Structure formats: structure tokens, C-alpha cells
């Protein structure tokens, strides 16, 4: 579920608006650390986690907005590198900041009292994320993004506020990445800068691409598959040899050859045409 949220956040900016961002992990980390610190140092109450999570998400969204102002002067690969750089900066800051445990990681984050609460709140947030992003995708705002995705110059000539739409989309995307990060922190109870490395961004990106860039339901389904698949493969009767990490990439490669547009392309699972 957390993976699905992370992927949804990224999918909105990369899939719908076609702005290739590799900064996911940075925003996830911001959300995670903010919410973790708030609960541990200030609130001390598990039932306030949804609130701190939203604050964490807002911090992340604000950071996203600030980052987007200079970086959306760039396009394509260059944008990807800048956002990647941002994620790296965030990671390095947390790595050297003693207050949040620096390289040791941040321990003893408030956790949910039991699993049903965890599932209930995370699930609700996932539904919220999904609904909001899906509604935005099919709205006027979404149509602006699709248009600038297809042809920025034409969109601009048609009166679309291109720069503003991109910034807004990036802010929304980082907001939900941050929210996912907060859920992640409270789920594990321990976070360290190491877990927010580039690998996390790649994982999130794989989910988005596999589900179909621009397909919100695709992201959710791909997240479910990609989270469950390693566990299913674990039970393969292969004796002592661990072939999981061989089968898994092969499946991914096959998938990309057979359906390069992802599971659903741009469509949602319920779209008929």
C-alpha cells in the first residue's frame, strides 16, 4: 500500500505531465522524517499520526514547489538529473544531522498500536491519494498537463499556463510522496538515510512504469504485484540456491518487451476504450 502511494505520487508528474523526475526518494524522506520527529518529540500520541503525516506531506509539497521554481526551466534528462541531485542533497543532510540520528538512523518512531489501525489509516490515505490524483487527472487541470505532455509549445500557444501547471503538478506529486514517506516511517518505526537512496526512487519508478505511465489504477496494481512477487518467488522449490533475484528481473524485462506501455498504458482499469 505504501509502495502504491509512492508510485502514485511519482506517476502524476512523470506519467501525466511527462516531467521526468528522479527525486521521489528525497520527498519521501522529507515526509518520513518530518512526521517521525513530530510524533516522537512533540506529540507523543499515535492517534495524531494522521495529522503529523499530513504536516510531513505539506513540508514535502512545499519543498517540491521551491525545487520546481528553478528546476522547471529544464526539461527531460536535465530535469531528471536536477531532481536526482535534490534527493541526494536531502539524503546527505539527514546523514549528517545529529538531531535525527545522522547515519545511525532515527529510532523509536511512534508506531501504530496494532495492525488493523495501520491498515485502516494507510488504506484510507491510499484511497484519498488515489481519488484526488485520479480526479485531477481527468479534470481541466489534468487536460492541461496532458497537453503540455504532448506538445509544450502548442499548449502554450493555446493559452495553457505551462510553467505554473508544471509547478503545481510537481507540488502535488511531492505532497503525496511525502505522505507515503510518513506512512513508511510509522510502519517500520525506524528510518535511516540509507533507505532513501537512489534505489528507492528506482523502485518507485519501476512500479509507475510497469503499471503504465499516466494510469493511476495501473500504479496501484503494479505496486501490489511487485510487492507480492518477491514473496511468491521465495516459496519456489529451488533448494538452497536463491534464484529470486534472477527470476524477478527477467519477469520485468519480459514485461517491458511484451507491453512496453505498461500494464494499462494511460488508461485506467475500468476504461473501456
Amino acid at each position: 500500500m505504501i509502495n502504491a502511494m509512492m508510485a502514485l505520487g511519482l506517476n502524476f508528474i512523470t506519467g501525466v505531465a511527462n516531467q521526468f523526475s528522479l527525486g521521489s526518494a528525497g520527498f519521501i524522506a522529507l515526509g518520513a522524517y518530518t512526521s517521525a520527529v513530530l510524533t516522537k518529540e512533540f506529540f507523543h500520541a499515535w492517534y495524531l499520526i494522521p495529522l503529523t503525516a499530513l504536516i510531513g506531506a505539506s513540508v514535502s509539497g512545499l519543498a517540491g514547489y521551491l525545487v520546481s521554481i528553478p528546476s522547471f526551466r529544464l526539461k527531460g534528462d536535465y530535469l531528471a538529473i536536477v531532481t536526482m541531485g535534490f534527493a541526494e542533497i536531502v539524503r546527505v543532510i539527514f546523514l549528517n544531522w545529529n538531531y535525527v540520528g545522522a547515519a545511525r538512523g532515527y529510532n523509536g518512531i511512534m508506531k501504530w498500536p496494532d495492525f488493523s489501525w495501520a491498515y485502516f489509516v494507510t488504506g484510507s490515505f491510499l484511497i484519498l491519494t488515489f481519488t484526488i490524483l485520479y480526479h485531477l487527472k481527468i479534470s481541466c487541470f489534468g487536460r492541461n498537463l496532458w497537453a503540455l505532455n504532448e506538445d509544450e509549445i502548442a499548449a502554450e500557444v493555446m493559452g495553457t499556463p505551462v510553467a505554473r501547471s508544471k509547478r503545481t503538478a510537481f507540488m502535488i506529486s511531492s505532497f503525496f510522496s511525502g505522505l507515503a514517506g510518513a506512512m513508511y516511517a510509522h510502519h517500520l518505526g525506524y528510518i535511516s538515510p540509507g533507505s532513501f537512496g537512489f534505489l528507492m526512487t528506482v523502485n518507485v519508478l519501476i512500479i509507475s512504469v510497469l503499471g503504465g505511465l499516466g494510469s493511476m489504477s495501473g500504479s496501484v496494481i503494479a505496486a501490489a504485484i511487485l510487492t507480492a512477487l518477491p514473496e511468491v518467488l521465495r516459496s519456489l522449490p529451488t533448494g538452497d540456491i536463491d534464484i529470486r533475484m534472477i527470476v524477478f528481473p527477467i519477469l520485468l524485462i519480459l514485461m517491458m518487451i511484451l507491453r512496453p506501455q505498461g500494464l494499462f498504458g494511460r488508461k485506467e482499469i475500468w476504461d473501456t476504450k
Partner: protein
Amino acid sequence: MSDFANNIKNTALLEIKNLNLSFGGIKAVQNVSFDLKENELLGLIGPNGAGKTTVFNMISGFYRADSGDILFQSKNVVKKINDLKPDAVNKIGIARTFQNIRLFGQLSVLDNVQLALQQRAPIAWFDSIFRTKKYLQTELDLKNESLELLKIFSLDVLSNEKASQLSYGLQRKLEIVRALATKPKLLILDEPAAGMNQTETDDLKKLILFIKDHFNLTVLLIEHDMKFVMSICERIVVLNRGEKIADGTPTEIKKNNSVIEAYLGKRSVANV
């Protein structure tokens, strides 16, 4: 006071004054001035590299002129539009099409038009996230308005097709419809007849004359196809090497020596 108001009414819709732009050492446009009266159909022609598209791009906000003014009259107020961004230029009433068609290929025909229309009716996020009544109503209105517009050009039957699946001629048409959907006063067409056969060109001619009357538009046209330009334009401005060399009715232009020179070279002038 009334004199002043009258004055403004009589001034041109678009006025271009002493426009200059160079790319590095190349002077792409030098001291070009011309104007466009309301409801006029003006053709801008010239050999390759004469600076036609550069002038277009300056008007529509993609290039910034080194010096000179672009004045546009909107709501009886003359505005300098040199420094506006393309989306702002569109908002004050100038729409354009492109030499190479730039539709949103993966979007439906309807969405292409609706995108252009919706810029006039912005909807708050709040409304789109919660799908309020206001949002649904606006969307429905936009959709109906788009369909009506498409119907005028009998494109409504294709409204659910992807734009990229239309034929070349229809794509051109759709691009013009999309530009119209932004409700412009001035429509700029960049080589609309490029790559068209004779029948398609004839249709296009009818289409341009039709929209000019029906939507009460002023049209600025860049074109290579001489026959097309001569038959449709009321007035023609000729550019060569970044400079304006002639300005007049099609008949005047046909006789103009420097125009013939620019197109055919000096010798043929001697032969005439």
C-alpha cells in the same frame, strides 16, 4: 474625449513598428513595419529565409524583438505586447497555428478543442478534486460548447477519435478549430496550405473565408503557395532578407519590380 475614442477605433488592430531581431550576426528581421486593420486578410510572403516565421514568432511571444514595437488593440485599448509570454499573447486575443501541425496527438479531437476552450473558464482545484456541482456543470458546458464548435466544421462525428488518427487535411482543419476555440480576434496561420493538394487547398480557401466572416476575425497568413495567396488575400506584405520590400494589393504586388527580383532574380526582370 470622443475624438480620442474615435481615433483609437480607427487605428489598426495590430501594428508592427520598426521591428528588429538578429540571431548572432544574422539580421533576421530589419526595420519591418506593417499594420493590420480590423477584419482584414493580410498575406505575409517572401522567399525562404526572408524572416516571415521570425516575425510570426515575435508576434506570438516566442522571440523577443531587439527593438521595435508590436501593438495590439484589445477592448479598444492599444497594448504593447513585445514582452508577453505566448500564453498571455493568446489571452489578449491572438491565436496561431503552426507550419508543422502541432496537435495533441494522443488526446481526442474533443479534448483538443476543450483544452483551448477551458483556458477561458478556469476551475479551482477544490472543485475538480471533489467534483462539485460547479465543476461538473462547467465541464458539461465546455464539452457542449466544444461539440458545437466542432459541428460547424462537421468534425463532431470524429470527436472521440485520437487527433493523430485524422487525415492530414482534417488535422489542419482541427488545428484551426482549436485556435478558434481560444476566441481570438486575430488568427495567424503559418503556411496552412503546406503539403496540401489542389482540392485540399481549395477547401482550405473556402474554410478561411468562412471563418473570417463567421467569427468576425482578422487573419494574418504566411504562405508559399503564390496562387493561393494571390487569390485569397486582400493585401500582401512581402519580406526579403529580413526587410519589407513591398506592401499592397495582389495586383500591385504582381507588378512590383523588387518583388519579382526577389523571387526570380535580376535577369528575368530585364527580360520582362
